[in-house]
């Protein structure tokens, strides 16, 4: 399991003067080009982490200007400040300095997509209430032009009461210099005027803020009145009394819910601004829309969906092979070199069998994981993932959920941790929990190593039609994960999480060419996280397992001796027997025997059992453990791990890795929840230990049951 962890790179240590810097928050609608602009402005001078207390990703970067530098905080993409989702609440709280450990920004850089001026201006209008120095970066001008939209920048600036508006093209870099120049003066441009779009609300908020004293900012009052911040709503009710506040709300909003009244009121102003600054507003953008419309037609969309998924699996298996072979040759060559140079002793075994075999066996999957992430990132960046929600809403409805659960589930194919966080967009708590519990079933990238290892070792590499058999088996395993996830959602939604029919609403972005820099940066981030885990968690586990497997050493006198074999056979046999005997009486061997009975009904010997047990904190460790166990336990180091697995035997000479056993093991992996990071994320997101505990027991049980049935039935046949 790969999760984004906080990286503590001192931002001030990257060649920039150390002094208290101003900080500017970047905020805008989802898909407005916010991250691209952020990357363009900060380059590699950025860090990723989480906001304290919540799992909302926090991107921090530094912008170097001609005369100064300042910090840039990238906030989650949002449509409004209504605070319904965690993302929205965090965005508001950060801009208001309510988040501990995050300084209040000295200014706002609002990113507006020129082709989506309508929703962008709505958010801007709300942001102006915050009374912070504000600038607008207008992105996607070229796309707007291509759609026949022309925006009068000066008129826009005037309509916004003089707020600076900078048209930028984050891809060509056009307009970035002016924006940077403008940013240099952001702290001195003063507080923006509040648009006269809703004078009653403005006046009431102003009056109450003064009346209530210094504890209250005007935005606090607004949020309390609009009931978008439960804390402030309660506090205001306490201050004014329930009757007075009901009266105020009736005056301001009539009998409509406050949020509906706000949308009506503010969009009136937005429409006026658009009429003033935009030549004509098309109903729907032309570029990309034709493609979107065609690919959205029911049948082409369905065919395309399966074609894309199949392509991903084929690519993961075939494109990665040359790179994987190279890494394999490198690590096994290094291991042999060390043994040859240093001779057979504890230290050379530690390096070759412990460190290199252990870490190397996980490292080899870096190419496949990068290819998988590349596809997911590109699909996300082009807007295709959002389209699949529309396509799959029907399917999700069948299990009691909506299309909104589709993005978390698809991104779970990369890693369940961010996808569980992505479930936050689902408004209903029951639907969200059902999605969170279904997501870990999707085959994440950490399951790939064990699948790839077992498939490469036990499924013949042959073609069936134009498809590769190994690719097909992998596809089947992914289907197994999907079935497990959907089945679980159905089960929960028809029992413990039964609730009203979910809504489905989603802003659908149009297709867009992926931005190379954004894709590269995200991919780089993923690769770094994977390597960091290989270098820390997996490294430590590999060393631990090697120690347990290597010690205590047998006395030479205890070695079984070959009595009557020819010289060469004698040597080989003795060496193998010696290694096997050593392994058996090592600490790991003794521990393995204790737990062997639990997994024996699944056809696993103590080595497989201990590897599986070691994998409960992080499932990719299993491959490292197998790499180490089989490296220590065998004398022939020039065999690959898959060859060693193929020849592994029970004491009575039967093969361990039979077809039913391997299939059972694969099913176990498809369903079992072996990931501490996922459990911790479920705990944080559901705010209870009940759900992660349930998920663990439930998934482990059905994984065990699945493996048991397949092995037992398969062995009878």
């Amino acid at each position, binding site marked *: 399991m790969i999760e984004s962890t906080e990286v503590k790179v001192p931002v001030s240590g990257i060649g920039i003067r150390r002094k208290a810097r101003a900080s500017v928050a970047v905020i805008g609608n989802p898909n407005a080009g916010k991250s691209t602009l952020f990357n363009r402005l900060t380059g590699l001078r950025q860090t990723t982490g989480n906001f304290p207390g919540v799992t909302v990703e926090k991107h921090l970067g530094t912008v170097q200007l001609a005369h100064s530098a300042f910090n840039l905080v990238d906030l989650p993409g949002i449509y409004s400040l209504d605070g319904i989702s965690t993302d929205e609440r965090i965005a508001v709280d950060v801009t208001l300095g309510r988040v501990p450990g995050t300084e209040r920004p000295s200014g706002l850089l609002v990113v507006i997509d020129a082709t989506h001026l309508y929703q962008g201006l709505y958010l801007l209008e709300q942001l102006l209430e915050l009374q912070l120095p504000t600038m607008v970066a207008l992105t996607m001008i070229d796309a707007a032009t291509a759609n026949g939209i022309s925006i009068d920048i000066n008129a826009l600036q005037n309509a916004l009461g003089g707020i600076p508006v900078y048209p930028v093209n984050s891809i060509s870099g056009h307009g970035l210099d002016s924006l940077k120049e403008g940013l240099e003066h952001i702290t001195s441009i003063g507080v923006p005027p509040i648009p006269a779009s809703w004078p009653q609300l403005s006046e009431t908020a102003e009056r109450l803020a003064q009346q209530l004293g210094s504890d209250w900012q005007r935005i606090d009052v607004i949020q309390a009145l609009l009931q978008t911040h439960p804390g402030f709503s309660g506090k205001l009710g306490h201050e004014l009394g329930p009757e007075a506040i009901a009266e105020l709300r009736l005056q301001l909003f009539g009998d409509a819910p406050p949020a509906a009244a706000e949308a009506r009121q503010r969009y009136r102003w937005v429409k006026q601004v658009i009429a003033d600054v935009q030549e004509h507003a098309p*109903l729907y953008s032309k570029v990309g829309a034709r493609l979107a419309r065609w690919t959205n037609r029911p049948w082409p969309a*369905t065919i395309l969906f399966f074609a894309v998924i199949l392509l991903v699996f084929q690519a993961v298996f075939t494109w990665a092979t040359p790179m994987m072979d190279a890494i394999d040759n490198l690590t096994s060559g290094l291991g042999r070199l060390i043994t040859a140079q240093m001779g057979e002793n504890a230290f050379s075994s530690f390096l070759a069998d412990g460190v290199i075999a252990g870490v190397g066996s996980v490292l080899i999957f870096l190419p496949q994981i990068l290819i998988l992430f590349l596809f997911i990132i590109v699909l996300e960046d082009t807007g295709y993932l959002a389209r699949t*929600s529309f396509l799959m809403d029907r399917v999700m409805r069948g299990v009691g959920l909506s299309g909104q659960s589709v993005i978390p589930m698809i991104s779970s194919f990369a890693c369940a941790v961010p996808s569980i966080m992505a479930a936050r967009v689902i408004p209903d708590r029951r639907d969200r929990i059902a999605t969170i519990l279904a997501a870990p079933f999707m085959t994440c990238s950490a399951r790939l190593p064990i699948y790839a290892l077992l498939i490469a070792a036990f499924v013949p590499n042959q073609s069936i039609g134009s498809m590769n058999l190994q690719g097909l088996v992998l596809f089947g395993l992914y289907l197994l994960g999907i079935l497990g996830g959907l089945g679980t959602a159905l089960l929960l939604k028809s029992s413990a999480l039964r609730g009203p029919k979910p809504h489905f*609403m989603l802003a659908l972005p149009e297709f867009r060419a992926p931005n190379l820099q954004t894709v590269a940066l995200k991919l780089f981030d993923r690769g770094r996280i994977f390597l960091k885990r290989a270098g820390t968690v997996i490294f430590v586990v590999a060393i631990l397992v090697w120690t347990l497997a290597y010690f205590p050493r047998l006395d030479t006198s205890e070695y079984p001796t070959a009595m009557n074999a020819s010289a060469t056979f004698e040597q080989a046999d003795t060496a193998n027997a010696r290694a096997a005997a050593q392994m058996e009486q090592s600490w790991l061997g003794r521990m393995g025997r204790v737990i062997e009975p639990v997994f024996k009904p699944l056809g696993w010997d103590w080595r497989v059992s201990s590897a599986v047990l070691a994998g409960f904190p992080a499932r990719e460790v299993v491959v490292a453990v197998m790499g180490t166990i089989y490296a220590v336990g065998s004398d022939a180091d020039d065999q690959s791990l898959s060859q060693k697995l193929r020849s592994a035997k029970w004491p009575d000479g039967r093969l361990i890795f039979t077809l039913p056993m391997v299939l059972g093991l694969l099913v176990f992996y498809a369903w079992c929840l072996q990931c501490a990071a996922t459990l911790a994320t479920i705990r944080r997101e559901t705010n209870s230990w009940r759900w992660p505990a349930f998920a663990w027991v439930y998934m482990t049980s059905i994984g065990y049951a699945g493996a048991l049935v397949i092995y037992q039935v398969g062995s009878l046949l």
Partner: protein
Amino acid sequence: MTLADLARGDVAKLEEIDTRDPGVIRLMVLGMVEDITVRMENIAIGGDPLEVGFFGSSVSLRKEQARHFKVTRIAAGD
């Protein structure tokens, strides 16, 4: 006539919105308010969900919520 009754390609004006459904309010926050012109961009297999376009944006919703939007059809689609 409601939004749920439009055929693909139909262009219509939103007239009256029933705000009692919380799902409807989320759609209003995305910009589906009275007096705007929308087009039915797409209807999924089985007639649900729907995709509605307005002001260059595109939003998907279910028929259940679409029924809360009263509309007048301006132009018929393909």
